[in-house]
């Protein structure tokens, strides 16, 4: 084959691959949006679900999902900030740093179902918490920990050394430097990472389906030890009755709402990340 022909074949192939890829992904989006929009109306968003989710809405599923990730965020943030500060300000031994990185970022690789199983063993069975939304929040917090640590760590690292030095020169001790100079920066970074983490956490089913959610009968949990209903587990229940047109319609509706929430969180996260990038370039 002549070089020119090869080149042409190659370039056609990349166009083709990109086209196919775009088509598939566009199809995904179109299907969810098209089917979802038809299901969504005021009642769907603000009514409780009835009849196995085939009737009524998804109000309490939305509340449940938000509750789960709100507390996941509250648990995750302080932990991630502490870890990021320690890693960047106290930990100087390269080997320990590498080890620490592998352990923390390794969590990112742990399959989501494993988090669910760990929660089932440790909280539900060993600590005897029973099926509880709060346990779900803890597990989701652990799951998104690496993302948030990484974001906070980047933010701290982007603080120029001169800030630290001038703060020390002003007579601030090490911890005061951390609190006054690094923490604000770290927090804003961590929060953008947090949004990315939440975008993933809110869509997760496997970590919470054994330990935190119920099928029906719960609206707003009365205590920390009650289960909740959530969007992903609701979609799971509806997906299993996919031949029932009403159930399927509601499944698409719930999916679109879930994707919208995911999109809101990832956009906030990406936006924060972009801002961070530009500010660290300055």
């Amino acid at each position, binding site marked *: 084959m002549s070089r020119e022909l090869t080149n042409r074949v190659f370039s056609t192939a990349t166009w083709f691959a990109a086209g196919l890829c775009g088509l598939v992904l566009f199809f995904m989006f179109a299907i969810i949006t098209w089917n979802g929009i038809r299901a969504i109306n005021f009642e769907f968003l603000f009514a409780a679900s*009835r009849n*196995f989710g085939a009737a009524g809405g998804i109000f309490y599923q939305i509340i449940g999902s938000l509750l789960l990730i709100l*507390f996941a965020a*509250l*648990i995750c943030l302080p932990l991630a900030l502490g870890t990021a500060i320690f890693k960047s300000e106290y930990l100087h031994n390269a080997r320990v740093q590498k080890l620490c990185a592998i352990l923390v970022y390794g969590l990112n690789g742990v399959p989501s179902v494993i988090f669910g199983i760990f929660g089932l063993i*440790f*909280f*539900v*069975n060993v*600590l*005897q918490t*029973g*099926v509880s939304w*709060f346990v779900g929040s*803890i597990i989701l917090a652990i799951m998104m920990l690496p993302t948030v640590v990484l974001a906070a760590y980047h933010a701290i690292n982007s603080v120029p050394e001169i800030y630290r030095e001038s703060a020390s020169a002003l007579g601030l001790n090490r911890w005061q430097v951390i609190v006054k100079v690094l923490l604000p920066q770290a927090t804003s970074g961590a929060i953008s990472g947090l949004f990315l983490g939440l975008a993933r956490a809110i869509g997760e089913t496997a970590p919470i389906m054994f330990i935190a*959610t*119920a*099928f*029906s*009968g*719960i*609206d*707003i*949990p*009365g*205590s*920390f030890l*009650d*289960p909740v209903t959530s969007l992903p587990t609701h979609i799971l*229940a509806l997906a*299993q*009755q*996919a*031949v*029932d047109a009403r159930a399927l319609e509601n499944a698409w509706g719930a999916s679109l709402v879930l994707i919208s929430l995911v999109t809101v969180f990832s956009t906030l996260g990406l936006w924060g990340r972009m801002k961070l990038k530009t500010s660290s370039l300055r």
Partner: protein
Amino acid sequence: MKNNIHKSMKNLATLTLDSLFLILVFSCSRTASVQVAGSTTVLPVVSKAAEQFRVKHADVNIIVNAGGSGVGINQLAERKIDLGMASRDITQIELTNYPEVDFVTHTIGRDAVVPVVSSEVFDSGVQALTLAQIGKIYLGEIRNWQEAGGPEREILVVDKEQSRGTRHVFMQVVLGDKVAAAPGADLVLGSNNEEQTAIAQSDAAIGMLSNAWINKDVRGLSIIMPDGSLVQPELANIANGSFPITRALLLISNGPPRGDVRTFIDFVLSEEGQTIVEEAGYVRLK
């Protein structure tokens, strides 16, 4: 080391629990709750009953979860829930697993497990089978609908997860062992809903479903009895026991039911509750 982690995790958990509790005070209008989980066959009844129960007892939440009979029995025994739903009896293994648990069963209605087929198969002539034929299909000895009087099409044999109540009852009658292996199976699914969906999506499937899940896409087969008579899957035949695969729908409590659990069981057994059982497609108690 392990102990330390254990301890510090526990401390952290309680610490966060305590501090966060204050934040959540607003939503703590402390309602009592009864947690129910298990069989997807019993689920529609309990779900519906829970909705109506709530109207009268606004202060009690009945939290309902699916999972299957096995889940219901296990979680009850492990005290994760207050009431288990089951569409089969408790097995010997389960009883020996939990010697300290006092399982008390409450029958709330009756149901049949019906061999079902895709509507295409039904319409092309397979409307009744003998138990032996069904058994052979699940054992993999009959593989084509032609051998059972149907079209020339390979059978899609849909099985259920092993601890499911529907499967126990079905296999007990068809193969004589409630945990019998089914080497002929092609798919293994879980809930009634999921099984119904797969059979409706196929044009050559056979499966086992609760009587209440039969519809125009998923048709129930009549059973050809040894004497040659036909028994149709109908409520009357389930009620008088002539349909060969019937079962009791159970709620199971740990010890004699007390308090809200007792009130709820009583509600399901009341006239109002029994109407729900009937509306769900099951046979009410007399």
